[in-house]
């Protein structure tokens, strides 16, 4: 972004103003996340930087909230984490299978009513979560799946599939269909062609859709608030209750863990995206 030498002074000033604005916005985006790290190591119970912390006094820092998170007697985080992972994993598997198969159909030239069907399939992503929550709650209560893991998994499959459909159809848009025809002409049946040819090529899209579905489920609180009983508590539910009642540093310890998890997922997703672009020949 270096400016050419002949730039007039007032454009030069404007350029620096522009860069300052951009830096400020980036700061606004990212800085809030970094407040959580230091405060989660606070030795005291308050959610402000103590004087000791400002002086970087080692005694002002401790791991007690992490200990509390893992070993605390009254803390429900263990159960919540277990539930969250179980639900998210099953919801991801369900979303990926249903979404990928549907995306294969939607990418076909022959698909009738493509626009309308796509609009219906994507709608759970667009409709406000509170409405989805109410509707899904009515359904699950009717079929007797409210306050069960199965009910929450089904709800999260509904919310997760749009992401898989979008990412996989995007990957398939650059897909060369002559390779599947070549496989068919060589005597491969459709299932075999899918497993051996199509799937490996669209795998980055499938996995990144799966990551979206996983994060959606893992982070989802509105629908679970309607569906969950005491046994089905998840990490977001516990965070929600904690944030409503009192903000304890233990929540910040959990939040730090969640930020680390999301960073890992982000890195994976980015690597996959780049690999997928390379495979589809979109080189820049």
């Amino acid at each position: 972004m270096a400016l050419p030498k002949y730039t007039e002074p007032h454009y030069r000033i404007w350029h620096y103003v522009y860069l300052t604005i951009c830096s400020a916005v980036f700061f606004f985006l990212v800085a809030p996340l970094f407040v959580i790290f230091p405060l989660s190591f606070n030795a005291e119970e308050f959610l402000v930087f103590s004087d000791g912390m400002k002086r970087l006094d080692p005694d002002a820092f401790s791991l007690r909230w992490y200990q509390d998170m893992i070993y605390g007697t009254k803390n429900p985080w263990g159960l919540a984490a277990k539930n969250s992972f179980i639900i998210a994993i099953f919801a991801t598997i369900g979303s990926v299978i249903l979404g990928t198969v549907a995306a294969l159909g939607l990418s076909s030239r022959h698909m009738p009513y493509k626009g309308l069907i796509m609009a219906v399939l994507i709608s759970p992503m667009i409709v406000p979560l509170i409405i989805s929550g109410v509707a899904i709650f009515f359904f699950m209560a009717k079929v007797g799946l409210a306050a069960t893991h199965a009910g929450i998994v089904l709800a999260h499959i509904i919310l997760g599939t749009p992401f898989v459909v979008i990412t996989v159809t995007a990957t398939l848009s650059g897909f060369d269909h002559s390779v599947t025809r070549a496989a068919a002409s060589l005597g491969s049946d459709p299932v075999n062609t899918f497993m051996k040819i199509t799937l490996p090529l669209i795998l980055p899209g499938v996995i990144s859709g799966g990551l979206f579905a996983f994060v959606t489920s893992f982070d989802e609180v509105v629908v679970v608030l309607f569906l969950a009983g005491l046994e089905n508590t998840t990490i977001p539910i516990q965070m929600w209750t904690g944030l409503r009642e009192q903000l304890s540093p233990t929540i910040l310890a959990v939040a730090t863990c969640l930020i680390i998890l999301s960073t890992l997922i982000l890195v994976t997703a980015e690597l996959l995206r780049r690999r997928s672009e390379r495979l589809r020949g979109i080189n820049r």
Partner: protein
Amino acid sequence: MSSKTKQILTTDGIPLEVSLKKAEKKNKIKAFLLVAPLLLFIIITYVFPIGDMLMRSVDDKMVTEMLPKTFKSMEKWDGQDLPPEEVFEAFYFDFQKLIEDEREGKLSTQLNYTKNGFKSIIKKLRRKSKSFEEGNYKEQIMSVHRRWADVEYWRAIKRRAPAYTYQKYLKGIDMYENEKGEIINVPEDRRVHRILWMRTLEIAFFVTVFCFLMAYPIAHLLATLPMKYSNLLMICVLLPFWTSLLVRTASWMILLQQQGIVNDFFVMIGLVSDDNRLEMMFNKTGSYVAMTQILLPFMVLPLYSVMKTISPSLMRAGKSLGGTPFVAFWKVYFPLTIPGIGAGCLLVFILAIGYYITPALVGGASGTLISNQIAFHMKSTLDWSFASAMGLMLLSGVLVIYWLYNKLVGIDNIKLG
């Protein structure tokens, strides 16, 4: 000889056209069968339940089913004077049946919604009706309480005859139907819902504007920087995008609290005095700040993907033709980014209008939105039909924007990450 061109036949002797159509149909079915499982799943578990919400929001069968004979005999009553003996008789028998099933309490609650004063007279009727004699029920019921002799109360009962009602929708916009069937506003001091609708629109609108103002420069920077720098900065946009919503809200709760870092900073630079710290949480400010930061990535990503496709030579051409950089930007670059602006703004607006978690945690009483009201009626007052009605009113708004989005941007053009 006919002038028609000879039909082309396949080797099996079937006309080519027919054969192609058959193949096409087969392909169509194949494609549809792949989509079918998910489509069915979504329709059964999601679309139908939303329809169920619609049924619930207009359903008013409860009273209709409790007083079947009464409503039947009321059909002939014109509602001018007191109803005839047969209506009183029918009402008496319906009422006895309800006492048997121990449901007369429910009736009194329901009728009390329509007109105040039913609770006590129904209780009294229950007690007195035990000693009723056969025949001349009109006199006997009217003697229980003078309100039973008031035609207004019988009109109120008649109004509950239809099995469907749009009352909940009227209530959602602070209106109701009075005794004469006119639709009027509720008194000024009780108009809570209109304020909420306006506030929801206001917050969604301003959050969209703030997001746009902040996202445009950084999307431009990301699109024009060399790849190795922009990839790094892109992480700054994507990290919040992937981070849990609750974590981001929690960090704002820490930042905005009275002893929080933002207030510390203001005190330090002397903007506010130490004992006069700003209240930025549990009010609208909290909702604005947190929602803007949380929704910002949804604006940056569509803008970025559009700006990425604009060739830098266009700006250079604009400048070489005599435009100042500002003119070149305004006349050349900006119009080209409008599709991205449309996509980003619609997306952020849709998401903001239905926001629930963040306003509930940092919004306080003055920063909550319509979603919070829906949740309140689902969980606290248990008026599910009202919650459904409000939800559907919100949904219809969202669907209009969704339709617009589909027209302008296309659903298949939604980009993720």
